[in-house]
Every structure is written in C-alpha cells, then in structure tokens.
C-alpha cells in the first residue's frame, strides 16, 4: 500500500470509529431513556437478571476461588522472603476488592452473558422479531434492550462481590489450610487493611461502571448487527473483544483519576 493509501485508510478507519462511537452514545442515551419510561417491565427485568446473573454464578464463584488460591500461593512465596507472611490476608483481599474482582468478573461476564445477549438480540434482528415489535408499535429498545442492559448493570457489582468473597475463601484455603498459616492472622490483616468507603465502595463503583460498559456494548452490537448468520457471530465476538478491552482501559482511568 502506498503512503497516501495508508493515510487514507487510517483516516477512513478513524472516521468510522468516531461515527460508531457517536451512534453508540445516542443508542446508550435512548436505552437509558427507554428504561425510565413506564411501563416498568419488572417481570422481564427479573428474567434477564436470572439469565445474566444467576446463570453466571458458577463460573464467577469458581473463578474467584481459583484466583484467590493463586494469589495466596504467589503472595506467600513473595511475602515470606521479607518475613511478612502475616500480611497475606491483606494482600489477597486488597488485590481482589480493588482490582481483580471487578475486572475479572467483567471479563468473565462479557464472555458468558454479554456474548449471549448480543447473539440473542442479533438473532431477533435476523428473524425480524424486532421489526415485528415495531409493527405492533412496541419500541424494541424499551421491550427488549433496556431490560437486558439494566439486568447487566444490576448484576455486575453483585457478581463482582461474590467473586471477591470466593477469592478470599480461596486465599484462606491455601494460606491457612494448605500452607499452615494462622486463620486469625489472615482475617485480622484483611480487616485492618480494607477501608469500606475507599476499597469496598470503590470496587462496587468499578463493578457498576463495568456493568454499564458490558451491558451497553452487548446490546448495541446485537441491535446493530448485520442481518445474516455471520452478523450474529460477529456481534457476539465483537462484544467480547470490545467489552474486554474497554473494561481494561476504563479500569486504568478510574484507578489513575480517582485512586480507586
């Protein structure tokens, strides 16, 4: 490719990305607005929370436990060099509450529930179900999209909390049961190190922000999918990629700007 061709391609890509970002912003505002309008679709919201939250419980809890175990092993090896084994609970707890809990939960949920959400909406596009709703004067944003997006926003901080709890149990299992540390020391170092207002609330805020990200990205990719089978698969794949990358980037900015 010639240099002018490369610059031209880069320009076209940038314009496309900016246009897509604009459309995403308009879509997100419309979904937020649709969620505010009556009727309150509680039944649909509960069904979606079940799909997004309850069905993600197993992978979130198992992953949290495994991550806690690994953290305890690595932490023990490092801390023991400095004679600071007693701080194992604090290291495991802080790492999970401030960073790993919200971020890894977001990545896991984007892969399981986010991709399923995008694929489901994209399939509704392909099979004209959304057009069917429009022909009944029922707004698909209100009936289909908003309950899914809000279910994700509500589920994410709760799942993140469970991830952290199971991670702390996993750390306890390795640090205390396997490596023979003192259980009281593990818990008291955790209790001393963790500030509710700074650490726990910060983690919950991150979880909520990631819920907004994954929920809106998944519904947007599904809603704007090309009406073909390849379009459905592209919607699911791009949801996982975009939501995961966005989670990591936004996490950096939240940490850098607000110190959470």
């Amino acid at each position, binding site marked *: 490719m010639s240099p002018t061709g490369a610059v031209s391609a880069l320009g076209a890509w940038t314009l496309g990305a900016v246009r897509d970002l604009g459309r995403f912003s308009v879509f997100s505002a419309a979904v937020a607005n649709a969620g505010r309008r009556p009727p309150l679709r509680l039944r649909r919201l509960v069904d979606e929370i079940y799909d997004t939250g309850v069905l993600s419980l197993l992978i979130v809890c198992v992953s949290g436990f495994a991550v806690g175990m690994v953290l305890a092993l690595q932490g023990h090896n490092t801390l023991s060099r400095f004679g600071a084994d007693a701080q194992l609970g604090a290291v495991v707890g802080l790492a999970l509450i401030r960073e790993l809990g919200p971020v890894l939960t977001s990545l896991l949920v984007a892969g399981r529930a986010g991709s399923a959400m995008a694929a489901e909406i994209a399939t*509704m596009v392909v099979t004209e179900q959304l057009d069917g709703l429009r022909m009944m004067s029922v707004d698909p944003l209100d009936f289909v999209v908003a309950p899914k997006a809000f279910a994700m926003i509500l589920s994410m901080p709760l799942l993140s909390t469970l991830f952290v709890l199971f991670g702390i149990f996993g750390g306890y299992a390795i640090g205390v049961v396997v490596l023979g540390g003192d259980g009281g020391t593990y818990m008291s170092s955790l209790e001393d190190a963790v500030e509710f207002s700074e650490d726990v609330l910060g983690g919950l805020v991150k979880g909520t922000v990631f819920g907004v990200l994954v929920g809106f990205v998944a519904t947007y990719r599904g809603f704007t999918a090309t009406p073909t089978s390849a379009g459905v698969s592209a919607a699911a794949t791009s949801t996982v990629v975009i939501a995961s990358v966005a989670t990591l980037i936004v996490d950096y900015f939240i940490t850098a700007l607000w110190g959470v």
Partner: protein
Amino acid sequence: MESERQQAPRECSPAPGQRAREAGEPAASPAQIEARGLAYARGGRAIFRDVSCRFPRGRISVVAAASGGGKTTLLRMIACLIRPDRGEIHVDGAGELVRMSDAEVRAFRRRVGMLFQFGALLDTLSVYENVALPLREHSRLSEVEIAAEVRRVFEAVGLEGVDDLLPGELSGGMVKRAGLARALIERPDILLCDEPFSGLDPPTVRRVEDLLLRVNERVGATMIITSHHTESTLRIADHLVMLLEGEAVEGAPLELVHGGDERVVDFFREPEAAPRGVGAR
C-alpha cells in the same frame, strides 16, 4: 376475474373485489394507499427507479415480481420500516408516510397489521402471549377480555390447542396462521402480508389462500400481499401490481396477464415442459 375464481373453486365466500365485479360495480375503487415515484437503491443497485402504484380500499392487492424484484421492499416502505430515497406514499386518513415523525409512524402502525414471511413471532413467548402482546401493550382490557379477543382471532385463523406452544414448536403453516392472528388482534384496516405462501406445501397454500380471503371478507381490511406464487396470485388478487425492472405495472389481474406487456405475460406463463419421465418411453 370471475373466471379466475372459477379456475380455483373454493368453499369460502368470494372476496369483496369479486363481489363488486359480480354486482356489476366498477372494478376501480378509491385508493387507500398510493405510492408516487418511489426510488430506492442499495449497494449500487437500483431496486426501484420510479415506482408508482395504488392499492384500493378493502380489496386484496397482490404485489408480484421475480425474486429480488422489490416486493418486500415495497411492503416495508408502506410499513415505514424503510424509507425510499425519493418519492411519496400517501395513505388515506394518515397522510404522507415518508416524512412522518416517529410518533406519527407509531400511531399509523396501530392501524396496520403485518404478517412477516417467517412469522417474526417472539421466540421466547408462547403463541398466546405473542398474540396477546399488542393488546397488553396498548389497551386497558382485563386478562379475561384479552383472552376473549385472542380466542376470536384464533378462531378466525383456525388455530387451536397451541396456546402454550413456543413458535419453534409450530409447523410452517401454523406459524403463518399465528402471525396472521397477531396481525389481526388489533382489528387493523390495512393488512400487509409478506410471502404468505412461500415454503408451504400445496394443500397448506390453499388453506392460507382461503384464510386470507375469509379474513378479507370478515374484516374488510385493505390487504397487500407479496407473492411470486403465480397460481395463488391469480386465485386471490382483486388488484395486481407487477414490479418490473424498478417500475410498476398495475391493473386487474386478468387484464394484465392477458395484456400486451410481454414481461407480465412471461411471468405468469405456465410451464410447458412435461414432468420428467413422462413420454420417455
């Protein structure tokens, strides 16, 4: 048209258009929907160059064209699901569709029922919930009254014992009937049917034809049906709109089919080849 009806004798009542002609009334009736100068292109291909046509009130109009000829596109324009690049669509009592605001489009759609080619039923809701949905969304009827309305349309389309089934558990013909029931639940005065005969076996095609004629008779709605099924078109159409190379030719079905336009005659020509194997010996 009478001879067309005679070609396919049926038990159900004749359509309004046929009745009008049998009574010696003029075939033309006021247009409820009129498209003027529609142009539409996608991917560098002009689907419509200059399409103008009309759909008479209370009659069954069939839009025929070869595959990819723009039948569904025209239907979706009338449903305001896509907008033409140029042109106007006037609907009696609603105004000009192309320049309507979103709120006006929503109000217009309350008057329109649409049967999609593959039903477009919500696959996570049961058949009953699908059909009841428009009433639950737009009316203040009690559940008992909604159930009575659903029974009415189920009876009209000949569906029974499917209330709790999901759309994925229905046969192709039943999906069409369930989709039609949903389209009829709010008593529309315009009914759009996208390829209602496609993918159906011949006996089911006949049943769907009867059903559409019966619905037209009972409800009196203006019906616009897209089809490339020539036999069904000739059996049920009061008015025929043929889309040819981005333009429209329209008129009474028999006049068009036996008229001077070679392209229309060619489209409706019956296959002359004998079935494979016949005469081989």
